[in-house]
């Protein structure tokens, strides 16, 4: 048996021991992926849908995912993909070598490949090989992660992803145990600090009214200590999976809580519902709306208008935290 070094579960692995996520094993005493280059789906979308609001605004992306996860969130929105044994899904997985995936992204005129359906840590070697091919093709890579990787794997994530959105779901150990299936949030907080040094970082918090809503202030204070420039997305949680029957959070009251909690951060958003009015970026210096967006809920955010000149506010010249530049999506594709 060897210990897996990808996430903080550090599962014992052997030839037929696959770990909690069931994505790794150790056939010859070395940790290997069970299903390299297998993808559950790919789709073309804008980068705002991940969400990234401060990285390559408007960029068209190839959104991809694999199978498996190292968490057991009670409200998982993608449970039908990530909670099923990955071995049982292989009959419908797409088999795409890194070069094929990158070529597909280019044929669809994408600027980026974004991993956002399940947890990238469970497919890290495949993603590293995609990153090599993507870099050669001039594409950037981004991901959405639960942040529970080991320090070594976090460094590898930071090296291949030009933008990372960490899901900071809760702080209290009791919450982590009951709602996420992990002992505590310590590794996630540590990795947020590390990723903020390594790459462009945004943070998302799915808000469950009455469950983690009282922790919003503490989360915002932690993020502000790391950097007040970290964009923070409070997500109205839609109850799914084991919470399907539970109430929907109140938009008015959670919105007020988020506004209050995020005062020390410069970029605070509240969305994941149709018509949210909390999705624009205001200049932190003069208050002018400098990036306007539209929320259609669940992966439907859109860039409406981009007013910055480079990274500067057109009204006061103040700097707005941004990685990359505005990508104006056109109706025409380029030849691969």
């Amino acid at each position: 048996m060897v210990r897996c070094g990808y996430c903080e579960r550090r599962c014992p692995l052997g030839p037929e021991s696959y770990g909690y996520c069931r994505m790794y094993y150790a056939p010859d005493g070395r940790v290997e992926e069970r299903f390299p280059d297998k993808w559950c789906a790919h789709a073309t979308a804008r980068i705002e849908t991940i969400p990234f609001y401060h990285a390559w605004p408007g960029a068209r992306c190839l959104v991809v995912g694999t199978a498996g996860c190292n968490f057991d969130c009670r409200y998982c929105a993608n449970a039908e993909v990530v909670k099923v044994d990955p071995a049982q899904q292989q009959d419908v997985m797409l088999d795409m070598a890194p070069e094929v995936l990158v070529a597909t992204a280019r044929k669809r005129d994408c600027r980026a490949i974004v991993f956002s359906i399940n947890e990238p840590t469970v497919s890290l070697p495949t993603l590293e090989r995609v990153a090599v091919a993507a870099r050669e093709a001039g594409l950037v890579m981004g991901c959405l992660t639960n942040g529970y990787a080991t320090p070594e794997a976090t460094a590898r994530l930071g090296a291949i992803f030009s933008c990372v959105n960490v899901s900071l779901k809760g702080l209290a150990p009791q919450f982590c145990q009951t709602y996420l299936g992990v002992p505590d949030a310590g590794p996630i907080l540590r990795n947020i600090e590390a990723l903020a040094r390594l790459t462009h970082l945004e943070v998302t918090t799915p808000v469950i009214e009455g469950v983690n809503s009282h922790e919003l202030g503490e989360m915002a204070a932690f993020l502000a200590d790391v950097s007040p420039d970290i964009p923070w997305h409070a997500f109205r949680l839609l109850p799914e999976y084991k919470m399907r029957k539970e109430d929907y959070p109140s938009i008015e009251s959670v919105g007020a809580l988020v506004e209050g909690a995020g005062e020390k951060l410069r970029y605070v958003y509240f969305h994941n519902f149709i018509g949210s009015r909390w999705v624009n970026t205001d200049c932190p210096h003069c208050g002018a709306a400098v990036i306007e967006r539209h929320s259609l809920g669940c992966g439907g955010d859109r860039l409406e208008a981009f007013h910055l000149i480079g990274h500067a506010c057109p009204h006061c010249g103040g700097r707005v935290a941004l990685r990359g530049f505005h990508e104006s999506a056109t109706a025409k594709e380029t030849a691969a």
Partner: protein
Amino acid sequence: MSLAILDAREWQQVVDLRTGRPLEAQGAVVDMVGALVDRHPFPGDRDNQSNDWVTDTALDLIAQYDPRFAFLSFSEQYYSWRYSPLTEAERQQRVDGAFAAVERFAQASGFTVVVVGTGDLVPAAVPVDLEGLDGLAVSSNWCAHYAGLYDLSDRDRALLAAHPGLERVVSRQDIMTLFDGRPGDEERLPESMAVTREGHFFKGTSLRRLYMIPQPSAVVPVSRNLGPVGSVTDIRAALLKLLETQKVALAFVEGVGCADFRLPHTACANGRGWFAYEPGDGQFLAISQGKHSIFEHNGGYRYYQDDTDSKPYPYSGFFTEIPSGTIGQAIPGRSIAVGNRSMFMHVLTGCDVTCECFARNLYNQGVMAVVHRQDKA
């Protein structure tokens, strides 16, 4: 100006449908519809209350607005069959449930209800993977049967010709000929279209495992109370005739073909030649406009090309204009549409007021109501 009322449960915004920008301007009809959708939160695509939500919402809207025509879609069974492993008995139970919801509507409204089944589903047996092509294969989230093909190489053509999962590959010109296309019509057609064999499916962008898939049916059932119709494109004219003497509702029971249809019916053509509509927006549009609309809407279009910075109608998929000549526009009296089949009722029906579920990939965001007209007496 058309207005959209976005209802995310106990929280509403009224916006300009074209731009998505919030509006203060309201009116009696908007106020009435806002209160109505607040009373009827959407239970979810696969919830067993979903078809009853259509009936309840439509009856409430009829009581408030007194329309002469109603366009309804009952789709809970369609989503459940696609994405849930159901036994045949459970499947039949859901057909019964859909027809019961239609019947309850008919009884309570007093409308003459013309029922259309949109075609059969078959077990999803074999995924077809075209990712290795030199060119590009595009199928949408909901399209299992057709894929658009672009920039094919000679190698691709040979691969496709020998592919065991494909029934045929047709060129853009073949599609133009089949549907009597005129110059300019080809703009939104793919360069070629791949068509799968029965039980085979393009995985497309769908995250979820498919259990059943639409098998586009050459014929679909239309309840006999409409009178004789030879094709889905004849339904519109026959309905308009019926409307001269009575209040009429057109009810779609999604994913149901002739074998499972519970009412006396006529089998009418659901396409032309090799092309048959899958249940969904292309078929709705053909029925609503009374003509084949494959040039505007086909499986395999590069839908994401329309997601540009300047695209209007944020709620209308790849449409950049609301289609004209739809059935709601042809009716002089008041009209409504209510449905639980995604956010396309307001685009495809042209009715004065529509209430539709706002669900994305089965995630329940709430309800959208669209008020196209407030001026009908």
